């Protein structure tokens, strides 16, 4: 459960990004990336609590954030692009962790439940 909560927090961090990094309104694409993918992370994380396989979506969002920050940011990257890369790596790593990560896997829980029925 906690990976999804941290993902929601990272999503909110992205949404607040334009304010925190004081992005200029000329960087419309960068601001749009922060807002759109921040919101998408929050929504995907919340739904993935119920619909397990949806954490694949957060991995995809993380990869996009890394890729966009890397390609559009160039070298040396402005803070906003660096923020996308860093947050993207964390979102990606969190997406790899299952929601029920503190319990045995679903398969093992089923296995023990079947044992009792026999």
């Amino acid at each position, binding site marked *: 459960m906690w990976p999804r909560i941290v993902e929601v927090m990272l999503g909110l961090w992205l949404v607040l990004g334009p304010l925190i990094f004081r992005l200029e309104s000329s960087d419309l694409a960068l601001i749009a990336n922060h807002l759109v993918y921040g919101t998408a992370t929050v929504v995907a994380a919340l739904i993935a609590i119920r619909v397990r396989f949806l954490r694949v979506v957060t991995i995809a969002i993380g990869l996009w954030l890394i890729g966009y920050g890397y390609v559009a940011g160039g070298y*040396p*990257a402005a803070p906003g692009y660096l923020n996308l890369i860093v947050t993207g790596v964390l979102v990606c790593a969190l997406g790899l962790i299952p929601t029920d990560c503190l319990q045995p896997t679903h398969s093992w829980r089923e296995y023990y439940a079947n044992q009792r029925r026999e």
Partner: protein
Amino acid sequence: MAPKTPGKDRPSAGRSARLSLTERAMAALLPPLLDTWAEALLAKSKARSGAKPARPYWEDAVDMDAAAPPWRRNPSSWSHRIKVAVLAALGAVLAAYLSLYQLHLTASVWDPVFGGGTEQVLTSELSQTIYRIFHVPDALLGALAYSTEILFTLAGSTRRWQYRPWLVALFGLNVLALACAGVALVLAQGLVIKSWCFLCLVITLISLLLAGLSAQEVYASLRYLGRVRRRSGRFRVVWNTFWGRASEPADRAALPKE
């Protein structure tokens, strides 16, 4: 939560005379009211837990703190993994501190041993090249690697060496990559840059400590997969076990009675 009657057995009984009537009434009424409310809540939760089993069956069926063979202790236990998480957090904070200098957010770096050595290392040709390739300064890459390590340490049950070998493997790869990168960077400091950085050495030391601390868990997971392979004789079963799918040979191979 015994209801307290204000005034009588308190040393400050004389002060109650100065309280207004409403205050005295509230002091007399509130504790019993709170107690009734708490009792009602307790009764409610009891009724709820009576409707369905309080603990999921697997918690009774398995010993979640069992020692992972060949060790006599459980390397996936929280007491062990918390140590790893705290060490990794220390590494992440130190690496983030160094990256602040590389991002020109701080004007100087603390180094009690080598003086200006740290700044030479952090602005060296090698550092610039890494920055140019990854678009992220190398210290920040280290901080990120330590952060993902915290995440992977905190994920998984106290028997994840059996239930999620892939997670242990991912964690092990992260630790291994950090340790190798740390050693390589220290070698580069001595051979290429020819100046030393105190905090970088501390961070490398932490990564080596982490590698030592997590080796047992990874080894326990590998040995378990080896036992599954010997018992089942099929690669398919080992593959499924690696990804956390249950099977009878895996169950019997987990804690062999020897």
